[in-house]
């Protein structure tokens, strides 16, 4: 998850900069934070529009591309610094990169207040219609008497403070996911048009001249391409297998595997079970079909959203739990981007697993038990269930 941290002060030395650097360093397993300074941003003046200056355009670009923004503000005169105010004025004048962007507020100050009053002002400012950010409620992180807060490595000294900060960060990750859901297909926007689900285009590997919807697309396409099968050897990176070995090998995977290419054509699944025995049923004659024919129309927007996430590189994998299999199973659909050596998007590897046996085995082996509420589910992607649960057979 890519975040931008904005230092709310233009002073040469700022504890709020230390705080953001600490967040970036200490929570790098959870979030990827780029800390941005505002000291080169000119004073806002509506009579002297500098929206197109490099420094403001850079902020605009970084914020637009980020999943969320953390603003660290000191307190000057019971409010936020004019330098931060000026930035927010530029970012609400001709451009509005914070519109709809999830924002978390933190702050450090010399006195005991820990920027409490400036944080309240900042909330009101971010809520103004020209800014229109989506600020995370609650989870107020105030760092008072900040001159005593950091050790010589610029780490926060107090373990409880770090613990609380981690709680706030984890909540923010979930908050971002929730905001994304609000703005994703479940919300008002219909994203069906963003993907060519009918696979009307063609890529280098598309087998042309054959009806994608035909029940025997595989047989026809194999003939057209003179595809090898059976005991013919195929050279792989790194190994040599026959096509049969390759099939048995893929069938032995502890998951139902499906491959759809970047043209949104369903090309393969590891077929060794009947549809009704599968967690996500597929039929042999579906192979070759455009994704539009594998899904009911009501989920087109959701399917497009998932593909967009992977295609754009915003996410490498989108997961969703499908709860309709009863309490004994925990079925997860993972939509994993397939990319070439240069990172180009090639398609989707959808793998469907029941991970309950893995969890049970782990608990048995380690003698541990699950305690209710103790598991902090950071991903929060469960909220996307409805969008993608239909990614199976239409029948």
């Amino acid at each position, binding site marked *: 998850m890519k975040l931008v941290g904005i230092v709310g002060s233009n002073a040469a030395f700022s504890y709020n900069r230390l705080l953001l650097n600490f967040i970036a360093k200490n929570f790098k397993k959870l979030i990827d934070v780029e800390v941005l300074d505002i000291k080169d941003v000119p004073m806002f*003046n509506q009579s002297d529009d500098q929206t197109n200056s490099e420094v403001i355009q850079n902020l605009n670009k970084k914020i637009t591309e980020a999943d969320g923004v953390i603003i660290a503000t000191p307190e000057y005169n019971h409010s936020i610094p004019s*330098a931060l*105010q000026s930035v927010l004025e530029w970012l*609400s004048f001709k451009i509005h990169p914070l519109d709809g962007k999830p924002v978390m507020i933190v702050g450090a100050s010399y006195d005991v207040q820990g920027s409490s*009053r400036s944080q309240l002002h900042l909330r*009101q400012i971010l809520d103004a219609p020209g*800014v229109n950010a989506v600020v995370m409620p609650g989870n107020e992180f105030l760092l008072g008497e900040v001159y005593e807060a950091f050790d010589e490595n610029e780490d926060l000294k107090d373990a409880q403070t770090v613990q609380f900060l981690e709680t706030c960060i984890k909540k923010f990750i979930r908050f971002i996911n929730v905001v994304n859901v609000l703005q994703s297909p479940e919300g008002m926007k219909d994203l069906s048009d963003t993907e060519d689900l009918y696979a009307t285009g063609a890529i280098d590997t598309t087998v042309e001249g054959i009806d994608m919807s035909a029940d025997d697309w595989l047989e026809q396409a194999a003939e057209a391409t003179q595809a090898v099968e059976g005991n013919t050897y195929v050279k792989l990176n790194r190994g040599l297998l026959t096509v049969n070995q390759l099939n048995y090998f893929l069938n032995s995977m502890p998951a139902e595997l499906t491959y759809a290419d970047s043209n949104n054509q369903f090309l393969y699944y590891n077929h060794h079970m009947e549809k009704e025995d599968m967690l996500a049923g597929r039929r042999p004659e579906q192979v070759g079909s455009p994704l539009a024919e594998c899904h009911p129309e009501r989920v087109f927007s959701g399917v497009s959203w998932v593909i967009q996430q992977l295609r754009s590189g915003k996410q490498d994998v989108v997961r969703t739990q499908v709860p309709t299999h009863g309490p004994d199973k925990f079925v997860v659909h993972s939509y994993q981007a397939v990319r070439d050596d240069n990172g180009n998007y090639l398609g989707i590897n959808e793998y469907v697993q029941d991970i309950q046996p893995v969890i049970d085995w782990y608990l048995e082996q380690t003698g541990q038990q699950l305690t209710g509420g103790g598991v902090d589910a950071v991903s929060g992607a469960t909220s996307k269930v409805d969008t993608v649960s239909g990614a199976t057979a239409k029948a």
Partner: protein
Amino acid sequence: MKNFISILGTNSDHSTNRLLLQFIQKHFKDQANIEIFEIKDLPAFNKPEDRKAPHGVQELADKIREADGVIISSPEYNHSVPAALKSTLEWLSYTNQALIDKPVMLTGASYGKLGSSRAQSHLRQMLDAPELKARIMPSSEFLIGYSLQAFDDNGNLTDQRKIEALKRIFNDFVHFVDITNQLVNAKESQQKQAPSYSWEAK
């Protein structure tokens, strides 16, 4: 006859708050000499280590010290005051603290209906901070909404009720200045306290 300094709370070339201050200057010229101070050429506050006020800020501070009272007129940006006004107040609080105990009256004009109400509320909270410690006249909100339509070609407010309200508030302010300056004891204690307040003090 009182001597007031008024601060225009924006750096914009076009401002109905400038019109408002010019109107106040003209309308009350028998009661007070009012100078309008422009903040647009002041540098942006950046918390310099030497704590020195730049020339323009020092000039403003001197004028504030000499004046009997201060009038600030602010537009509203993003539910708050413009960064330019905020920067001016930061300079004053960080360097010479010229606003300590100075009687202050607030006015504001905005293009929309609400007339800068939220900016004024932020401004009051800021002026109340220990590093500024201005004496803001309480219960005296003066707001001009739809300010683009509020003045005639000669720069006069067209709404007679608004002029009456402004008169009452201005008269109150003249008294408020006298009363505030009589609060000697409290004033002395604050003068001892405030300069010792530092932005970095433990």
